[in-house]
């Protein structure tokens, strides 16, 4: 496969050049937030139905997986 300006070092091709900020890959480790063993910080946000959700109150003593994702739009 050609290593053109649209193909990154891992072999991903996208309609943006690899020099675009949003396609840059951290050279070294990047921040992954609170550490294992810490309490997940509290937050309250609206969901897709407009309901206000307090994460820790809503999970109500259940285990939870909290996924941070890029966007549902693009």
């Amino acid at each position: 496969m050609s290593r053109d300006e649209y193909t990154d070092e891992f072999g991903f091709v996208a309609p943006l050049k690899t020099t675009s900020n949003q396609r840059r890959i951290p050279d070294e480790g990047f921040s992954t937030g609170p550490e294992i063993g810490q309490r997940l910080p509290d937050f309250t946000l609206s969901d897709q139905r407009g309901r206000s959700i307090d994460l820790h109150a809503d999970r109500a003593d259940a285990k939870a997986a909290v996924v941070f994702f890029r966007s549902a739009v693009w």
Partner: protein
Amino acid sequence: MTQLGELQDALSKFRAAGIKLYAVSYDAPEALAAFAAARGIEFPLLSDPDSAVIRAFGILNTLIQPEDIPFYGIPYPGTYLVDEAGIIRDKFFPRHLANRSSAETVIDSALGAILMGDDEPRARGGDDAVRVTAFLHGGGGVLKSGPVRRLVVRFELREGLHIYGEPVPEGMVATSITVQGPDGLHVEAPVLPPTQPLVLAGLGVTLQVWSGTVDLVVPVWADSRLVCVTRPVDVPSATLDVTVRYQACDDTTCLIPRTERLHVTVPVEAHDVPNIDLLAKNGQKVTSMDSMTHLDTLVRRFLPS
């Protein structure tokens, strides 16, 4: 969006494991509502439109500059697994920002075991003493762009037998796995469970062994040579050639060392793209929501009014 669809597909597995699922992004609630409707998402998609929570967590993608509208504000993508007390028990941030952990990786971490799915492609080897099964775990074993799958080699050892981890004395065989696939398949270093020490008192030697059921894991993912955002998939399946070498012993005798070659053929699925002209119309799977309207709103959020 591939990731969110897979999380929805795995929702019953999350529920069975007692895990509530939430996903956070900088999208507006209206965009999340449109996406949830288009893709049948039933778990909460939480809106953090000013990226305040993303910043508070310290995971704002700072490679993107504030003037890069509308990309500025996204997080480094990752997942936290918390226990009943809200303590983070595991977290998943793949090194490449295009990669995502499979839903099953998170569920398995909570359960402390790998649950092989009925739909996951597999190949079997071994014999009555040592059964060997290789399967591609996560997302039904389908290779896509984004998700990291796990090629699992499961040993089921007859009672009394064990196999060896590194290091082994000369003349003995440590268990090893190699995975080869088509161009575009990235194979990461194996992830091995802890071994148990086995002391051979008479020889003054301590060996590292596994017994019972042992899962050795090799993370794999597809790059654009297999699944590309700008074109359809060329070949709808891929074969993973898995070579396993091991020697099983009990306390007194060893079986003959074996080398097994297992072939796991897995589906390859087209790229999952938003309904945006720049990306769509090249044979990919297109989400039915009107992405351009929401992209327009997203851009305007950042512009001076």
